[in-house]
């Protein structure tokens, strides 16, 4: 019954998510409300991690499988997709790569910038801190 109870907790959160979606006039899916709620509940210690851990691991692990039916759904929307297929595919494929590269690079850039300049306001120690941090970062980069 342990896993059923874990599943129950997750379903309750999902259900509250659906209630919120129903009553709040925004185009936000129930799952996102649920995600935020569960996160808040974990942070506030309302739900303990141990009481959902195994089931949530399992659900996350099999998640890719859950997209199969939606993907197969392309079969029924093929009629509308076919006439604009080529330009749409080109746009989708190229932009996906560009978006991934840009957001990854920006995130990494800011992370590394912050590592190099940990505390800008400490004027006197600044050079010293920057040097030692720079050194450390160089080593960690090589070790990746």
């Amino acid at each position, binding site marked *: 019954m342990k896993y059923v109870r874990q599943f129950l907790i997750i379903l309750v959160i*999902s259900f509250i998510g659906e209630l919120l979606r129903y009553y709040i006039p925004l185009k936000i899916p129930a799952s996102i409300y649920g*995600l935020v709620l569960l996160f808040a509940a974990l942070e506030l210690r309302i739900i303990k991690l141990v009481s*959902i851990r195994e089931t949530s691991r399992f659900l996350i692990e099999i998640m*890719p499988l859950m997209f199969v039916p939606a993907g197969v759904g392309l079969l029924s*929307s093929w009629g509308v997709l076919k006439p604009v297929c080529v330009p749409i595919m080109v746009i989708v494929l190229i932009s996906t790569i560009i978006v991934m590269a840009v957001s990854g690079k920006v995130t990494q850039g800011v992370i590394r910038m912050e590592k190099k300049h940990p505390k800008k306001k400490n004027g006197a120690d600044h050079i010293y801190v920057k040097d030692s941090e720079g050194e450390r970062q160089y080593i960690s980069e090589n070790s990746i």
Partner: protein
Amino acid sequence: MKELLTNSVFFGVMVSILTYELGMFLKRKLKLAIFNPLLISIAAVIVCLLAFNIDYDSYNAGAKYISYLLTPATVCLAVPLYEQVELLKKNAKAIFAGILSGVLTSILCVLAGCVIFGLSHEQYVTLLPKSITTAIGMGVSEELGGIVTITVAVIIITGVFGNMMAEFVCKVFRIQEPVAKGIAIGSAAHAVGTAKAMEMGDIEGAMSSLSIAVAGLMTVVAAPLFAEIL
């Protein structure tokens, strides 16, 4: 026989899992990104349905029980996020900047593509929410007057492609920080990409799931501002 395949509620689930296992097997044996289990499974099920002349609705009568788990599974993405919350706080600025740049890049790429191919306003707004999760994307497309069925198709294609390309893109563009990898994948390829990020590591997975929610919300705000340009 066909009667049975069409009427059995187990057939859809069975064939989905079976083809997914086939995909896992091929991936292990051949180790190529193109042999993505999700892609293989989708393609194999489509071939199977066409070969036995089964329509999508009868397949989905069973397969919908797999999709049924999607909401609870997405809710569970809060768990890796909770486990990585310190990392999130520490890199808040970088994460926010990364997701925002991803959302804007996505919109600008779609705009540029639509101008180049001379697509209509309707097709443009249909493509705008392509990088975000289906549930939010459908809403955005509908709101702006797009064709929702195409939006869903495009979101799925984006996700599967992002899932396939994630490791390659990170390698070529030298995205090495686990946090940056996760943000990149989640911002570009929503939940389907996140499945790949989860395989790459806990940090990648947590950051990717965070990006689904944040990128989705940012697109809800940003897309209408850009909708009238074309």
